[in-house]
């Protein structure tokens, strides 16, 4: 029976053969040998944060292990959008799976320009190119505020981006949105095709012997199993109030974790930091989902999306 299980889902117009993705920034560009498995088995590949110009990133230490998680302040090290298009997309195309490029910027103009250039490159990826807007970066224009905390700013950004592309647009929310529902509705209304959540949470570690923050960037983003209960709660909350599909992430390490997100309302899930200890986690999750669907006697994983949500009023 498990062989008959249909794991395919559609998210933001992308057809994914299964709902398991790597999380942006934890999987390089997906075509490196470091992946250690046949990447074409994934639902899609998500590449790391791409900015208009190359960025060198933050001073080390950039990462530190925490209890059941880690902090990172990579600082968006990346070769810039033109290099991503020229060097990485052609190699990614060979994998035959949809590609989602994570987009970051300091200003609305920067986002728009990165998106414009990616939009022009869409033909490189026949299996489908999607964009994931990372809106939890400091917004210089708005005086240090963050897009990810202010629904109106986020909606404005989205409108501008939507105007220059017809590609699938996924908006990645910060877990620090004071009101995730307001934020989700704002980006949905402004044209987002899907919402991914959560990004990392602000945290820090202190080196008690040197009496100073461990990270070169002082604070960093917390990820890993530590944050899973908060991420599940946010997905569960948002799923009750928006109609676009959700991509759930935050601490997923096992298929059981992935199922929690799916039952909470996620149409797809992404595995991030857990890849570091267990590079094969995505494959184990795919296998686990097949078995779970079998045990639950459903023929498609789609029947399980949101199955733990309270019945929704019409």
């Amino acid at each position, binding site marked *: 029976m498990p062989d008959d299980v249909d794991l395919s889902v559609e998210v933001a117009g992308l057809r994914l053969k299964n709902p398991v993705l790597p999380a942006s920034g*934890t999987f390089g560009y997906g075509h490196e040998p470091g992946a250690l498995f046949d990447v074409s088995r994934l639902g899609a590949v998500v590449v790391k944060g791409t900015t208009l110009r190359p960025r*060198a990133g933050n001073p*080390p230490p950039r990462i530190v*292990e925490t209890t059941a998680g*880690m902090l990172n302040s990579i600082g968006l090290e990346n070769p810039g959008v033109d290099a991503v298009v020229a060097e990485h997309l052609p190699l990614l195309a060979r994998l035959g799976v949809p590609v989602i490029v994570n987009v970051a910027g300091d200003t609305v103009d920067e986002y728009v320009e990165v998106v414009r250039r990616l939009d022009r490159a869409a033909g490189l990826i026949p299996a489908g190119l999607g964009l994931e807007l990372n809106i939890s970066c400091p917004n210089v224009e708005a005086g240090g505020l963050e897009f990810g905390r202010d629904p109106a700013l986020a909606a404005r950004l989205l409108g501008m981006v939507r105007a220059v592309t017809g590609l699938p647009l996924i908006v990645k929310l910060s877990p620090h949105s004071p009101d995730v529902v307001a934020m989700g509705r704002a980006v949905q209304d402004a044209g987002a095709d899907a919402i991914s959540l959560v990004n990392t949470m602000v945290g820090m570690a202190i080196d008690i012997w040197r009496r100073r923050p461990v990270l070169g960037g002082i604070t960093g983003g917390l990820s890993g199993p530590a944050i899973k209960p908060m991420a599940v709660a946010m997905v569960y909350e948002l799923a009750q109030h928006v109609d676009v599909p959700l991509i759930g992430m935050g601490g997923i*390490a096992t298929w059981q974790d992935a199922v929690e997100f799916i039952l909470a309302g996620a149409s797809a899930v992404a595995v991030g930091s857990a890849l*570091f200890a*267990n590079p094969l986690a995505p494959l184990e999750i795919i296998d686990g989902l097949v078995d779970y669907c079998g045990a639950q006697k459903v023929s498609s994983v789609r029947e399980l999306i949101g199955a733990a949500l309270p019945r929704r009023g019409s």
Partner: protein
Amino acid sequence: MASLETGVVVAQETIIPGHFVLTLAAPGISRTGRPGQFVMIDVGAINKLPHPLADPFWRRAFGLYRVDPEAGRVDILYRAGGKGSRLLALAAPGDKLSVLGPLGNGFPLEEAEAPVALVGGGTGVPPLVFAGRVFASRGIPAKAYIGGRSANQLFGLDDFAACGVPVQVSTDDGSAGVRGVVTDILRPDLEALEVRTVFACGPTPMLRAVQGLVSQFKLPAYLSVEAYMACGRGLCLGCAVRLAGDGEPRYANACTDGPVFRSEEVVL
């Protein structure tokens, strides 16, 4: 190329208090591993617990200490200091561990002009032992300079002796060898022009001292640096090491571009 291998514990022995030699059956890594390369062990998944433990969260990195391609075995030598390494110390013969490796670029044995100085201390010693053994087997002159806090903190000295690599020792308290730091025993040999290449592995302050010394003597030197590592495979960009040079800072990955760098290439 790095791969994932299930290593089966063959033996685990204490060498000095708190320090263990772990012998794993890991044929793949035993065949391809070179001195200066390392492995990362998933200490949170001994015997693949059903749900891997998330604390410790990352794999732990250990340099290759001995490889035996015939027997398909790999040894690492480690200090059980923190929670991950102490958990590893619980592993018993027959237990299974997920081992990722061999990782990194290792020491450039072929390019090194002899005589080679192997300089290090503490848990930096195992890769130097591996290098020394290879040099000895090839008849290439090498000498080890090992620094430590005191006599009872030293290990690996017998290994050098056993393969015919002479070893000189310094300790902070003078309880073994020369009282002082490792550069104190290295300097006279550099002055006497008895060293053409330096390989170093040890704590960062020691590496910095070696960096200073070799630049003074304009000697080629290769340093194996330490950094926090999450993936070990060039994917997370977490293990950045600052590259030397003016202007905008530039970084390399300790895991894939290193852990061994040319001394003048990096800022420690």
